[in-house]
């Protein structure tokens, strides 16, 4: 299979046309890229795409170069779209990443693409990382970029390089230079300790951002990644909070007379939307973070919760049991036109609007099983991605290709995080030190 053929297959799988082959050049000089190959002749009878064999040579020089190429390879492998080739199979040893490689040596081991690179230290102490992506069968360079950063950010540079490769080959934005905020859980079920923690999307660099014995739940990143909104039981007063990551400053969101929960940001970061519990009913409110004004959006004798904005901010999907059991509803951002969209067997909850705007992910309970699925925004085209004893709480990668959620297996001591492709393929455990739940994906960091 040539790279062109692989690309065709990839396009079919995505069922989208990509003619966006502008290479985003971060800052510095770009090494010229070859023109994109023609991408035509979509064969819609082809099924799942085979991961593309790709050779990722050790970046020169030394240990850090190798560590960076390891992280690049791991990112691409976890995406399920690439199959990095074992370095022991390499014939050519790259000694000059600026020169064209011996393409024959890479074709013979079936590498459709080759990544070469170099890491050097600048006079001011910064790290300079460069890479080139080669189409081995066409014998051409596809892209080349370089980045400068502080040495401790080497993992981020690796993720940014992996994103650049992913974008150049698939035509889609990557999602590797992102973080996950989640609830880190430890201790027995009957006395569980919960802290908010942030880690890179691959599980590295995990750190706690709260440390108390209060229950903390359902964190979400603000669009600018500087704040987190979440729910805490501090002082036995369950409320929605806002946490400034830089300063550690915390505040209660709004002055509501009862429990507030299920907070999320609006896409412009100006509002927090959440539920307010009053007696047996929960209704959805927003609070404008500048003016502090609150607005009530739903008013029913039911549980209305888990709101999620469409990416353009014009609509909101939420769950309500106003019809007897939990179902998904869509309304305008002002609360107008509340319309039920889920009509399948079972109950539906925790809807999350895709960053692309075209799909809504959800948790579905049916037949004693908990599933993660997606549907179109009008409720049609439901697809279940994974089913089991307990799967809950999907969150979208910023490119809308991958979902993360938490799963508790029967008999397991606690939940863990998993990611899965939008196609339902490539389910992966996301490594965390202890138990973990309520993952929320950040936007791209760059």
């Amino acid at each position, binding site marked *: 299979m040539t790279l062109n053929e692989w690309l065709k297959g990839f396009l079919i799988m995505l069922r989208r046309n990509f003619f966006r082959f502008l290479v985003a050049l971060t800052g510095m000089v770009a090494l010229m890229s070859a023109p994109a190959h023609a991408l035509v002749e979509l064969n819609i009878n082809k099924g799942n795409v085979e991961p593309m064999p790709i050779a990722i040579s050790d970046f020169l020089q030394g240990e850090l170069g190798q560590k960076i190429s390891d992280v690049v390879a791991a990112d691409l492998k976890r995406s399920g779209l690439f199959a990095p080739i074992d370095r022991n199979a390499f014939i050519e040893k790259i000694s000059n990443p600026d020169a064209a490689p011996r393409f024959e040596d890479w074709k013979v081991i079936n590498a459709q693409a080759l990544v070469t690179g170099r890491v050097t230290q600048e006079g001011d102490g910064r790290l300079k990382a460069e890479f080139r992506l080669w189409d081995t069968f066409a014998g051409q360079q596809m892209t080349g970029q370089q980045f400068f950063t502080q040495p401790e950010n080497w993992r981020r540079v690796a993720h940014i390089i992996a994103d650049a490769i992913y974008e150049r080959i698939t035509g889609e934005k990557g999602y590797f230079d992102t973080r996950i905020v989640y609830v880190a859980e430890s201790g027995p079920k009957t006395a569980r300790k919960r802290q908010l923690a942030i880690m890179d999307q691959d599980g590295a660099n995990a750190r706690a951002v709260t440390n108390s014995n209060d*229950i903390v739940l359902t964190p979400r990143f603000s669009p600018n990644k500087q704040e987190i909104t979440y729910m805490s*039981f501090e002082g*036995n007063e369950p409320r929605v909070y806002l946490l400034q990551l830089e300063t550690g400053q915390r505040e209660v969101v709004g002055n509501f007379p009862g429990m507030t929960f299920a907070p999320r940001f609006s896409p412009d970061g100006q509002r927090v939307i959440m539920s307010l519990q009053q*007696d*047996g009913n929960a209704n959805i409110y927003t609070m404008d973070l500048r003016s502090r004004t609150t607005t009530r959006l739903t008013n029913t004798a039911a549980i209305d*919760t888990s709101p999620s904005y469409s990416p353009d901010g014009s609509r909101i999907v939420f769950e309500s049991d106003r019809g007897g059991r939990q179902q998904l509803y869509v309304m305008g951002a002002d609360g107008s036109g509340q319309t039920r969209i889920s009509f399948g067997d079972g109950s539906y*909850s925790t809807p999350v609007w895709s960053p692309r705007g075209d799909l809504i992910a959800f948790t579905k309970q049916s037949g004693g099983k908990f599933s993660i699925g997606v549907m179109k925004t009008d409720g049609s085209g439901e697809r279940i991605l994974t089913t089991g004893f307990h799967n809950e709480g999907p969150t979208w990668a910023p490119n809308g290709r991958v979902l993360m959620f938490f799963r508790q*297996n029967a008999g397991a001591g606690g939940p863990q995080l998993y990611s899965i492709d939008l196609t339902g393929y490539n*389910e992966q455990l996301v490594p965390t030190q202890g138990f973990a739940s309520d993952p929320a994906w950040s936007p791209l960091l760059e």
Partner: protein
Amino acid sequence: MSRIQAPAAGRMNSIARNPVMVALFMTLAIAGCASKKNLPNSAGELGLNAATPGSQQDFTVNVGDRIFFDTDSTSIRADAQSTLDRQAQWLQKYPNYAITVEGHADERGTREYNLALGARRAAATRDYLASRGIPASRIKTISFGKEKPVAVCDDISCWSQNRRAVTVLGGAGM
């Protein structure tokens, strides 16, 4: 679209076919159930009757501090009504206590919905106690959703213990 679901089924099958996984799964399932603890709800179960009248122990042991709910339900069952009737009588006898009603849900629901469901159960319990003469001003409510189970296993024997409203003397804290 059927191809989308194929790999999930494939994974399930491959787990089921793997004897080590099955054995591990069974062991864990059994261990999980063995460790469940059903909290005593009455003096008879505990074999204790010697609590000082008017004490927390008296309330928990002789009156019963908790009621249970059916799945997804917030209605006060007949057995729960008699517990709450005893609670109301006791609270009228000892009027200095303020109370907090804690609402809880089992783990077979999503986290946010369960927070609201627990709140509904706490509110229903408060309303029942109020209807039996306990002033609402003495009663605070809080929901812990599914976050504080007392019984830990993966079947209904535990879930039914966790769908509860607990009356706590003095304030929330359990």
